[in-house]
C-alpha cells in the first residue's frame, strides 16, 4: 500500500486525518471482500481435504462440519487398494519420457521455423496449429486401431509417442517465439568459427532455452499427468495404469463412497499440488505465455 500521497501537515493539528482513515478503511474492506471471494472459490478443495479425514459416520451425521480428528484410515484403505505407488511411478515415467521427447524434438523443429519464413515453414506451422486445435478424442479411434495392429496397446512406448504427438505442437510454438527473440549475431559469431548447424543449435541455442524449457516441462507435466482418455483406452494392464486411471477405477468401482472418493482425489492431486507450490511462478508464466507474446 503506498501512502506517499497523504500530506502530513504538522502545523494544522485539525484532529485525526479523516480522509486517510476513510481511505484505509475502504482499502481494508476491499481486500477483505476480494480475499473472501477467493476463499469461496477454494471451498470445494477445502471440502475435498476435509472430507478425506472423516469417518463414514461423521459424514452421515454432519456432512459439512470439520472432522473430529484427523482420521487416516481412509488413506490407509485407499493406499493399499488403489495401487497408488505403482501408478505414481507409471505416471512419472510416462510424463518424464514425454517431456524428453517433446523438449528435444520441439526445440529442434522450432529452430528452423524461427529463423526462416517461407512456404515450407508456413505449412509446418499450419500443421502445428491444426494439432493445437484438434480434440484428442478425434484421433483416439485410429490410434487405438494402429496400436492394436502394431502391438503397441499396453506399452509405455506407444502411449509416450501418442502423448508426444499431442503435445509437440505446443512445444514448437513455445520455442519458436523464444528462439526468434535470440539475436542472430550470436549465431553468426559461431558460424564464423566454422560451427555447423548442429553445433550452433547445440552450443548456442540450446543453452539459452533453459528457462522456457522449465516452464514448458511443467506445463506438459500437468497435462500428461491429468490426461484421462489416452491412458484409459491405451493402457489396460493393471500394472501400467496412470494415477488418474487408478483414481477413476478405484472411485468408480465403489459407487462414489465418500470415504474412498476424497482420499483418492487428494492422493491423485497431491504430487501436482506440491509441484505447483514449489514452481508456482514458472507455471503461471506458462499459462500466460500466449497472452503476453
Amino acid at each position, binding site marked *: 500500500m503506498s501512502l506517499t500521497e497523504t500530506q502530513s501537515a504538522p502545523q494544522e493539528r485539525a484532529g485525526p486525518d479523516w480522509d486517510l482513515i476513510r481511505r484505509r478503511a475502504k482499502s481494508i474492506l476491499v481486500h477483505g471482500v476480494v480475499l473472501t471471494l477467493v476463499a469461496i472459490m477454494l471451498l470445494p478443495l477445502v471440502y475435498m481435504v476435509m472430507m478425506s479425514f472423516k469417518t463414514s459416520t461423521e459424514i452421515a451425521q454432519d456432512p459439512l462440519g470439520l472432522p473430529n480428528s484427523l482420521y487416516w484410515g481412509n488413506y490407509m484403505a485407499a493406499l493399499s487398494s488403489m495401487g497408488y505407488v505403482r501408478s505414481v511411478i507409471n505416471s512419472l515415467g510416462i510424463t518424464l519420457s514425454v517431456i524428453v521427447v517433446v523438449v528435444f524434438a520441439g526445440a529442434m523443429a522450432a529452430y528452423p521455423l524461427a529463423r*526462416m519464413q517461407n512456404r515450407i515453414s508456413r505449412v509446418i506451422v499450419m500443421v502445428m496449429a491444426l494439432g493445437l486445435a484438434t480434440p484428442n478424442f478425434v484421433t483416439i479411434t485410429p490410434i487405438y486401431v494402429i496400436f492394436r495392429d502394431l502391438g503397441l496397446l499396453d506399452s509405455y512406448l506407444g502411449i509416450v509417442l501418442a502423448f508426444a504427438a499431442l503435445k509437440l505442437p505446443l512445444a514448437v510454438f513455445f520455442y519458436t517465439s523464444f528462439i526468434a527473440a535470440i539475436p542472430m549475431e550470436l549465431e553468426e559469431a559461431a558460424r564464423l568459427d566454422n560451427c555447423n548447424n548442429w553445433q550452433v543449435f547445440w552450443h548456442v541455442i540450446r543453452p539459452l532455452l533453459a528457462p522456457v524449457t522449465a516452464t514448458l516441462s511443467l506445463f506438459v507435466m500437468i497435462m500428461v499427468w491429468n490426461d484421462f482418455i489416452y491412458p484409459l483406452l491405451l493402457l489396460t494392464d493393471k500394472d501400467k495404469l496412470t494415477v488418474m486411471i487408478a483414481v477413476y477405477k478405484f472411485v468408480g468401482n465403489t459407487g462414489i463412497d465418500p470415504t474412498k472418493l476424497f482420499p483418492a482425489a487428494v492422493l491423485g492431486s497431491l504430487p501436482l499440488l506440491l509441484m505447483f507450490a514449489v514452481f508456482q511462478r514458472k507455471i503461471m508464466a506458462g499459462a500466460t505465455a500466449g497472452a503476453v507474446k
Partner: protein
Amino acid sequence: MRARRSLYLFTIPALLVIGLFFIHPIILTFEMSLTNYKGIGEAKDVGWRNYERIFTRDRYLTEIWLTLWYTVIVVSALTVSGLFFAAMLHRLPLIRNFSRAALYTPAMMSFVVIGYVWQFLYSPLNGGINVALRDLGLGAWEQNWLGDPSIALYSVAFTQIWMFTGFTCAIFLAGFAGIPEEINEAGRLEGASSWQRFRYLELPLLGPSITVSVMLTTIGTLKTFELPFILTKGGPDGATRLLSIDIIDNLFGQYKFGFASALSVVMLVIVLAVAFVQNKVLRDREHTS
C-alpha cells in the same frame, strides 16, 4: 543458402512423431468415417451414409447445438469472471500473486478428480451444496443438480467455469500488467472513478488479452469431454450429451468405429471453423478499435 535449407532436417524428429501419431490418424479417421467398420472384421464402404445420418437426425443436430451452447455459456462466463477477478486483483498488489495462484489451483487439477468431487457436491441426498443450502435456511433452493434435465447442463458448465476462472484471470492480469501506469494515473487526475478507468481506459487496452483468452477457452470448451463423462455420462435424458460424449459412446460402448469417426470429423470441422472465424473476427475488431 544450402546450409540454411538443410536446417529443415531439424524438423524431422518432430514431424515423424506428429505424422505417425497425429496426421496419419486424422487421415485414417476420415477413411473410417466412410465405412461401417466395427473394430474387427471387414470394413464395408458405405460412402457418405454416416454423414447423411448425422445431418438428418434431430438427435445429432441437438448434440451439435448443445455443444455450441455449452461453449457459449462457459466462454462468456469465464471471460466475465476472469475479468472481474483480474480487475480487482490488479488494484490490490498486496494479495495479487497469492490470489492468482489460489484461483489457478483448480485449473491444474485433473478433470477426473474435479468431476468426482463435484459429483459429490451436487449429489441430491448428502451432497455439499444441498446441505449448505439447508444449513443457510435456503432449503427451498435445493435441487437435483445433475439429475434434473433442465439444469444438468448448467451444473456441468458451472463446474467448468469454476475450474478455469483462474486461467482467464491469469491471462487478463498479464494484460493489465502491460498497460502503462501513466494511463491510469492520467485517468485518476481527471477524477475518473475506478469503474470508469476500467470501462474506458483499461478494457479497450485489454483487447489482445481478451482475444487470446476467448480463443483458448473456446477451443478448450468445445473439446469438453471428461467433465460430462464423469458427472453425468451424458444424462439425464440426453441433457448433457455433448458431441464428444457420443463419439466415445459409439466407439467404446457400441464399437461403431465408422460412425464414431464420422462424428469425429464433424467435431474437428466445427472446432477448426469456429477457431478460424473467431480468429478473424477478433483480430479485425482489435485493429479497428
